[in-house]
């Protein structure tokens, strides 16, 4: 029963800057960006050229929503791929180290 309720591996808190940590962060950013995008916040980015996003919401709220959207957009297109690539690099590096260590362990055991 306890095993049934166990969280899936991907949602378990990973060690800081481990490959899994990077993938979790990438997934979180992507999810948040998707939500902001679906909420229609892209419309507020007109603030970039000095145009108000919504006459109803006014300057301050429009600017705030624009800044939030732009930050998550940049994180999605720049940071997320970097995090995913870094996770792949770490996983590959780990596999290389393991491959390098394994033959030594095997030869140690034989001797």
């Amino acid at each position, binding site marked *: 029963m306890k095993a049934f309720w166990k969280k899936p591996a991907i949602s378990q808190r990973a060690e800081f800057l481990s490959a899994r940590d990077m993938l979790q962060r990438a997934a979180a950013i992507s999810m948040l960006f998707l939500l902001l995008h679906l909420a229609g916040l892209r*419309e507020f980015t007109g603030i970039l050229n000095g145009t108000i996003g919504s006459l109803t919401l006014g300057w301050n709220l429009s600017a705030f929503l624009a800044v939030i959207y732009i930050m998550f957009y940049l994180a999605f297109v720049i940071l997320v791929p970097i995090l995913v690539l870094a996770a792949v690099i*770490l996983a590959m590096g780990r596999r290389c180290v393991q491959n390098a260590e394994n033959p030594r362990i095997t030869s140690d055991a034989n001797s």
Partner: protein
Amino acid sequence: MKARLKRIVAGLAALVVAALIWLPCLHFFFSRPVSEFRQELGLSPEARQLAARHLQLWTEPALRETELNKMRVSNAEWDFMGRSYLVWSLANMALRDPASKPLYLRTMDQIIDETLRLEKQEGMYFFLMPYAKDSRYVMQPAHSLFLDGEIALMLASRRVVEEKPEYKPLLTERVNAIVERFQKSPRLMLESYPDQCWMFDHCVALDAIKMADHLDGTDHEFLIRDWLAMAKRRLVDPKSGLLISSFETDGTPLDGPEGSSIWMVAHSLQLLDADFARDQFQRARKELGAITLGFGYAHEWPKSWPGMPDVDSGPIIPVFDISAGSSGMAFIGASAFQDEEFLKSLAATVDFAGFPNRTHGRLKYCASNQVGDAALLYAATLGPLWKKVETGTKPR
């Protein structure tokens, strides 16, 4: 503790390597062939989609009102310039796509008629920024070359595509009034705002005069020649060789060269003095244009004459010193002078950072506004109108 430190160092190193791989590749995801933005013949897919959005604005009054009001909160000029750029774009589109000419002409007439009605009903200050009322125009009665030049070019563009007899006296009247004021001005410098003259407005007005000559057989070559000689002598920044953007009626510079002005100025000059136009574009490209990691953009000011951000430059993005206004207008320069590398990189930037919204075959850039998108549409379609005037082909 040692294992944790080792993991963090490995993680940071992986992030650095990943960044070094990803950042130079990023532009590949936003780059498209130049032909998607601008084509030598016919209309590019981008032009069609941008035009579809603008045509929708002119068939749905409520939508148009919302868009225009959003711009007018910041700058009433944008409402006016959005109309001008759209009319000039539609003129080029009508020449590129004769099958759709009736629709384009109808929309042009609708925009021109409404603009003239508003100017007559509300007065010239309706399309100007509030500071126009702060002091008295030096030359009386007060006129703004900004309005007169762009309206004249709208009327002339319409007539170059296809003659409309009702617009002939309106163009003649507007052009004669501009010429008369040039003749009264000892230095050939006309105001757009009180004691404030703009290079952009002079070039557009002279284009309209040139077009009127083409249409109606008048001859203002001497005026154009004298004005160009004066501008080369008095209105060029000696360090960059670029035309300055604003000056007083006695020629005292107000602003130095500006990206939000010079790209369109260079394009306007193509109709007046092709060699000077190319020289200005090449200098602007060198002083203001930049491409980083495959993304093109433009600065607002050359290093020789820095300025302060204003409504024309738009917000300046630090570090790279990117001006939204100058980068948007750079499309016009790159397209007019067929600088494909720059145009392609600018298009990559606008797809990356302009937040395009494509729905039902219509395109708008959310980070832009109606006037910004209309200027992009103009960049995607310009060419045939100037060519028709240069080759002297009269409308039927």
